[in-house]
């Protein structure tokens, strides 16, 4: 009887159940063949190889991040060999993708293997009798002369107060208790693995259906998704199965905002966008986007990604908004020369932009405006500055009867358009991974208690009063041994105080 130890106490190796090969069904045989895919050894090997692969990708210059010419110069004759090995494009190389696929299958089969044992370990409520606990490696006992009912109730309350879930055996025989805390943590690894699987699957789904596109657009411009210059499906045809929505974007305005106390430092980029349906000409969404605040509609998101000065200036000339180009030079300075008035007047507006050095073309500190007619500046005389206006952004003044206003430099916004049908699944996978990893942090703590009545004196109780009960305790945790031992010390003290004879209450030994 002593050898008949409950697996609940000493534990059993998960997945260690042996199946007789001759009696295995076909699915069991397939499961057996897949043994190599689900081993922890393979997981460790793959993690190591993936780690080394990613590390190589960081240490070796990667195409896209570094200019190809620089890579060729740096590696000289070794370039071709290293290129063939995919070392300049590690993350899309054949060997890295193979590792990822193997990792996926290892996760898949490994998770299946560990799910059931982990679930059983989390939900199993097994009770152990005194004969089992006595042979377990970690146990202690204490004797008490209190009535059995009071004793059992007190022990239950002690564990409940410590946050344990308590179950008492309803079967006949000696009173037995099972207390457990944070059992859910056993499912943590399986949940985290499941989350990673979901993430990988969602990424694959996104690769087959998603696209990214880039467009540089100036304020007032309207463009269709289908007419975007750089449309990049995530996979090449025929694998790509996505669709491009028949939508168009209108850039109402684009502004670069600078810090007031640091006029050379950009605070934020704002683009006012309208998203409309081409066919129905209905407004789908409207938003002022900025970095970190994209416009989303369905599974399409439009980001404020970049900007580019066009070299033009928005001006108001006699109440009319005009875009003037910086189209010529004067004494090595780029200037704008725009004809105004009637052609026979040969009158031009000359604008000298004074850009802030740090961000040329984006922020014009001010402009100087002159009038040019018949080969010379209006109001020019020897040693004297021609008549001119100094205009800051938003200012309007009059020069020789012509009303001139400077609105701002024209800057194109770089928009990134992304269709990602997998977003919801990615977020869900992230949430599952987070939950799983947090679950892993906790440790399952289990305590078994059994009461041996005085009618059956144990080996340890021989020679003692037969009127005393003996309580046997056994404990187990899967990690956090340090804190569990501290808790156990406190529990022991409480249990000891609880089982002491309470003479003042009239309970005598």
């Amino acid at each position, binding site marked *: 009887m002593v050898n008949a130890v409950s697996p609940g106490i000493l*534990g059993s190796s998960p997945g260690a159940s042996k199946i007789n090969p001759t009696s295995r069904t076909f699915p069991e045989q397939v499961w057996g063949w897949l043994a190599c895919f689900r081993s*922890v*050894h393979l*997981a*460790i090997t793959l*993690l*190591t190889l*993936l*780690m080394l692969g*990613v*590390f190589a*990708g*960081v240490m070796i210059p*990667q195409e896209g*991040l570094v200019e190809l010419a620089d890579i060729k110069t740096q590696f000289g004759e070794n370039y071709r060999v290293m290129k063939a090995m995919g070392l300049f494009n590690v*993350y899309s190389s054949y060997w890295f993708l193979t590792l990822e696929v193997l990792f996926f299958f290892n996760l898949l089969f490994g998770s299946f293997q560990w799910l059931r044992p982990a679930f059983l370990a989390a939900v199993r409520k097994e009770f152990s009798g005194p004969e089992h606990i006595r042979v377990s*490696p*970690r*146990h*202690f*006992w*204490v004797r008490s002369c209190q009535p059995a009912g009071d004793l059992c109730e007190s022990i239950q309350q002690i564990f409940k107060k410590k946050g344990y879930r308590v179950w008492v055996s309803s079967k006949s025989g000696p009173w037995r208790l099972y207390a457990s805390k944070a059992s859910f943590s056993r499912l943590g*690894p399986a949940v*985290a693995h499941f989350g990673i699987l979901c993430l990988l699957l969602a990424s694959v789904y996104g690769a087959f259906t998603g696209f*990214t596109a880039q467009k540089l657009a100036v304020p007032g411009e309207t463009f269709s998704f289908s007419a975007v210059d750089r449309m990049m499906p995530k996979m090449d045809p025929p694998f790509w199965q996505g669709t491009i929505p028949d939508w168009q974007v209108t850039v109402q305005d684009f502004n670069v905002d600078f*810090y007031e106390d*640091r006029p050379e*430092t*950009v*605070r*934020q*980029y704002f683009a006012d966008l309208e998203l409309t349906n081409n066919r129905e000409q209905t407004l789908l969404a409207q938003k002022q986007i*900025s*970095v*970190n605040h*994209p416009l989303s509609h369905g599974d399409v*998101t439009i*980001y404020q990604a970049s900007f580019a000065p066009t070299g033009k200036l928005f001006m108001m000339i006699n109440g009319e908004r005009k875009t003037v180009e910086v189209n010529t030079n004067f004494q090595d300075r780029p200037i704008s020369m725009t004809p105004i008035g009637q052609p026979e007047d040969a009158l031009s507006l000359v604008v000298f932009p004074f850009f802030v050095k740090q961000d040329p073309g984006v922020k014009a500190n001010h402009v100087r405006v002159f009038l040019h007619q018949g080969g010379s500046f209006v109001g020019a005389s020897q040693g004297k500055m021609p008549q001119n206006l100094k205009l800051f952004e938003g200012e309007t003044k009059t020069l020789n009867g012509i009303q001139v206003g400077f609105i701002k430099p024209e800057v194109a916004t770089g928009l*990134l358009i992304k269709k990602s049908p997998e*977003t919801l699944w*990615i977020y869900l996978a*992230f949430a599952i*991974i*987070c939950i799983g*990893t*947090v679950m*892993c*942090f906790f440790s399952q703590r289990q305590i078994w208690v059994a009461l041996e009545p005085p009618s059956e004196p144990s080996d340890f109780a021989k020679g003692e009063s037969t009127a005393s009960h003996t309580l046997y*305790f056994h404990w187990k945790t899967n*990690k*956090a*041994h*340090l*804190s569990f*031992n501290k808790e*156990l*010390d406190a529990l*022991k003290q409480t*249990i*000891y105080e609880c089982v002491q004879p309470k003479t003042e209450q009239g309970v005598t030994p």
Partner: protein
Amino acid sequence: MTTFLEINEMQWVHLGVLLLIGSLFLYVLRTLNTSKGLWYTAWSLLAGTVACLVISITLRSVEAEYFALSNMYESLMVLSIGMMMAFLALDRWFGLRGLGWPVCLALLVSVGYATTLPTDIHPLQAALQSYWRSIHVPVILLSYSMFTLSFISSIIYLVKAYWGVDKHQPLVSVSGGRMGGDMLTQSLSHQVFSHDLEADLKQRAEQQQSAITLAESANIYDEITYRCISIGFPLLAIGIILGGLWANEAWGNYWSWDPKESMSLVTLLAYGIYLHLRVNGEHSAKTLAWVSVGGYIMMLITYFGVNLMGLGLHSYGKIG
């Protein structure tokens, strides 16, 4: 006379460093003396250091008008605060005598180095103006704090295992087999494997009265390493995920294989290897300690190395 309100952020840092030096001195003494008064004083001085650095960062944030966590100086300060708080909790729970002074020394290096870096407050770049910055960065730094503690614990373990009193004892991973757990249990709570509770409690009371403490077993540091990594690993995983969500909002991509991102994945994989080796249970605690040290080197490359390179989307974190 200068009031507390007039002390500027750098003066708070200097005050914190002074307290830290005091704490280091007392923690060194603690390795020779078991006095509880000494321990409490060392602990309190370290708690005082945390308070000083928290006040410093708060003042800085008020001045900058954003949560001051945007450059190397600020991130090292937050990392140090996280490390101190984690250690204070560990020390409070377990009172490990050998861990205090190495942690204080590491903190002194960290805070000292931070003070040599540029401390100017710059306005935030557009990409950094997001609530995600206040979520993603502290979580990552907290994981780094835990990994630093695990590294120190691993080093102590290795020193004890190779040169300490434990070098001839069988050192096994706690989770590497049932025996490891039992040895740990025995060394920690002064228990025999099976015992009479009454006798055990009496024995322990006598030991406490005579101020006898057991020498700290190397296995305790193996366990501390494991616990620190089991806290740091989920934090890093969650931090990377939060970073992915932020990247998707700012750059339209969860993952760009940016050097910083890639190295953080390398660190995560390294510690993932540690945890899997631990689960596997076939490897000695020495091997695990070396893997933990390796993981920490990867973390250092992620934290400092990539910043030194100044490459990629995280280049605003570059040093100097």
